[in-house]
């Protein structure tokens, strides 16, 4: 590159739109609970593996095998308010990063992808813009959401991150022969060379009946419930799911702590899904989160390590925030 780029290229703001920043730090007055990701899945078939929900399934121990973990983190760097006429829409400037860890004899970080975006609500479409910090150029991809509810731009950022996670998981699944564990519910179902297992750390909605749910309290470490089928046939994302206990946490901790919900795509033959469920359930306790982790034990140790690494790779939010504010000031003054 021969010519030195300017500190930032000023993107044109949408016609007649005033773009202003909210001085509150993003962690205040913003955010949504994870249950937003738990949609109503309609009919659940809890008899795909067994009708007997009185006893846990106890998988046999497995020989060591490579395991991949895929996860992402996201962050709002600056909240925006876009106004046109009398209408005010929420917006944000945010960053996300997705990456992977391969656990073999040693656990190693795989490739990392960092993305940044400027998202406006109310159907306003921002322009792509770049910020230059030192020798690094930060490019913000423009996105829009139709509504004006305050959390919508954040929801969009979350989806952006999930999509990137899914793409990374699919890329690894296409190239490696192993099992891939992706953080969160499974959001895609295209067949891959090796299986991808989604893992929800926490759940509010129990898809099975209350009687069946009794079994969760009786699961031992490394044991699971029978498989059940989730998702409407017409919606496409149908998957087999099961609950598994990854650590032994006696009272005073409640009886559903240390339980995760795992999912695989339902296009797998049921035998393969069962085999995969057994393998993952048997393996998970090894990777249970450290006691000192704020989300112990469901935040698996490789995932926790990966998240720390990814947050670091997103760069210092103070620098991004400062650069974004300079950009806003410059666009304000632009003719």
């Amino acid at each position, binding site marked *: 590159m021969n010519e030195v780029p300017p500190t930032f290229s000023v993107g044109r703001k949408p016609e007649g739109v005033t773009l202003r920043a909210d001085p509150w730090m993003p962690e205040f007055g913003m955010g949504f609970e994870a249950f937003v990701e738990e949609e109503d899945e309609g009919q659940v078939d809890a008899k795909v593996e067994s009708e007997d929900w009185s006893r846990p399934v106890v998988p046999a121990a497995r020989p060591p095998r490579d395991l991949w973990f895929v996860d992402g983190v996201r962050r709002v760097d600056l909240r925006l308010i876009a106004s046109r006429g009398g209408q005010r829409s929420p917006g944000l400037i945010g960053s996300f990063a997705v990456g992977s*860890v391969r*656990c073999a004899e040693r*656990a190693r970080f795989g490739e990392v992808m960092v993305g940044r975006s400027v998202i406006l609500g109310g159907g306003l479409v921002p322009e792509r813009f770049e910020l230059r910090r030192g020798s690094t150029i930060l490019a913000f991809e423009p996105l829009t959401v139709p509504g004006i509810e305050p959390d919508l731009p954040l929801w969009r950022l979350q989806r952006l991150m999930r999509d990137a996670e899914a793409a990374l998981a699919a890329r690894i699944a296409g190239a490696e022969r192993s099992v891939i564990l992706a953080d969160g519910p499974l959001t895609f179902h295209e067949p891959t060379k090796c299986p991808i297992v989604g893992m929800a750390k926490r759940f509010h909605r129990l898809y099975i009946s209350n009687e069946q749910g009794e079994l969760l309290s009786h699961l031992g470490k490394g044991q699971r419930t029978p498989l059940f089928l989730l998702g409407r046939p017409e919606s496409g994302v149908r998957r087999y799911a099961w609950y598994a206990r990854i650590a032994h946490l006696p009272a005073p901790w409640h009886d559903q702590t240390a339980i995760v919900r795992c999912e695989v795509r339902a296009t797998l033959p049921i035998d393969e899904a069962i085999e995969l469920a057994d393998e993952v359930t048997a393996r998970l306790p*090894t990777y249970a989160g*450290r006691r000192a982790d704020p989300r112990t034990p469901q935040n698996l*140790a490789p995932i926790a*390590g990966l998240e720390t690494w990814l947050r670091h790779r997103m760069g210092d939010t103070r620098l991004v925030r400062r650069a974004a504010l300079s950009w806003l000031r410059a666009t304000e003054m632009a003719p």
Partner: protein
Amino acid sequence: MRVEPAKSSEPVGMVIGTEDSTPLRFWVGVPADAYLQLDDPVLVETEVPGRGRVRIFGLVQDVRARHEGATFDTDVFLVNSGVLPVETAVAAEVVATRFEPEIYVPPLPGLPAVRARGRDRDEALYFDQMVRRIPAGLSRDGEPMFLDLDFLDGGRGAHMNISGISGVATKTSYALFVLYALFHSPTLGAFRPNTKAIVFNVKGEDLMWLDRPNLRLTQTARDDYEKLGLPVGPFESVGLWAPVRQGTRGHAVPSVESRSEGVTAYYWTIKEFIRERYLRFLFAEAEDERSQIADLVARIEHYLDRECVDDPDNPATVVHRGVAVADFEALCSLISDQLEDEHSRWRGRLADSTVAAFQRRLDAARFRVGHLIWGREAENAAAHRIDFEANQVTVVDIHDLHDRAKRFVTGVILKRLFEHKERIGRREPLHILVLDELNRYAPREGRSPIKEVLLDVAERGRSLGMILIGAEQTASEVEGRIIANAAFRVVGRLDTAEALRNEYGFLPAVTRQRAGILKPGSMILQQPHIPIPIQLRFPFPCWATRSEEATPTRDSDAVFARFRTP
């Protein structure tokens, strides 16, 4: 096959930005495919706006490695079992030694660092500025290290002081290595043949084999000498002197256990004792500053010299008022008689208690030192007077003597040498004095005649060309002015508590810790040119240090070999 060290500098990492980079101290991040170890010379080039390129040289003072991303001590077990992903980070702390040109700026984070080799290394260690340099040993990566002769021979500085625990610190061996390097490198030029060394053998008979090659020298040690540009062999010109055996009369036999030939017995005569005023060295233990014994000794020396005339019948003795002082016993009686005589001028107005104290010490000296001062029984006194001009290295054995006698011999030789140098009045050729157990001769507290001479050597020896290579277990027990005058400070294995004392203030904290774990043959050298002390090792002596090394393997060894456990 030996691996030749690379001659061109090689990349080893980058200046990191997570630790403050300062002109005198900065950190270099080391990638997985490179390494830096303690004492490695490092070079970083940085661009200074408007001033051009600045080359910053430094030495690695500390290296650390850590898991990045691990929070708890127990994380290491998770990492090891393949559960927790982390990065391993290695970084080396570099202390700057030199800036070319002298613009004191910090190297900026991200600048590449190289391990200095060849000419870069010479610059980092100032070897390029040492016009007259002699080998000082090998750095731990096997490259030659040098010391600047200008700071040893009195040109710009003088003296060397070596501290360390006996037996492990190899102080004397290092002193001899420096002598060997000096005598076998061309640096001294035309003065080399006439440069002399006087070495006191204070422990065992290790130094009584300096004139023999070490037949058991390993090939590795030979390679080390080759790297240093030194030949392998013994000291060529050595005079070995041992005290005369107690109880012998007439024919003087040296008191030495391990070898029978090539060692000359030494003693002094009554006449020398009186004329050269050696009496004071019988009273050479450290005295309270207020003690008056020294005054009494000076009076007696004075009157002895004045009232005694040379014995016409014997060159070794004197006559006092018509009575021959035939031996040391007679001399002691003469002194006692004079002191007991209340009208004698010898005792002056000194108190009875002082005289009594003097008498007690004289008695002790008579018993411990008497055999070294001969009277009529001396046959050929000249042949038994220590001649430090006859050979390049003169070894004076005192290891088996009583403390009092050790002080006497040391004091007498120091005085003679100092007077000799004063008479010559010029610096070169040099006389180098190697003296272990300095704390015995120049203790921190009190005064003694030897300490006076040693202080003279330390403070004036530089201009007189009399160089002191002194050694002691603990520098904290030695007169501070003697230590302070040494241009070179060398430290072998140190007691941990001793290493914390002020006398070792020149050692940075990390180096002090290292001094506690040094192996025999490893020393830490501080020299005027280089701002931080550097650890080095020196090769095993290529001269014999005991009879087994001096003689070819005998059959008896084979016999004994059978008894060794496999």
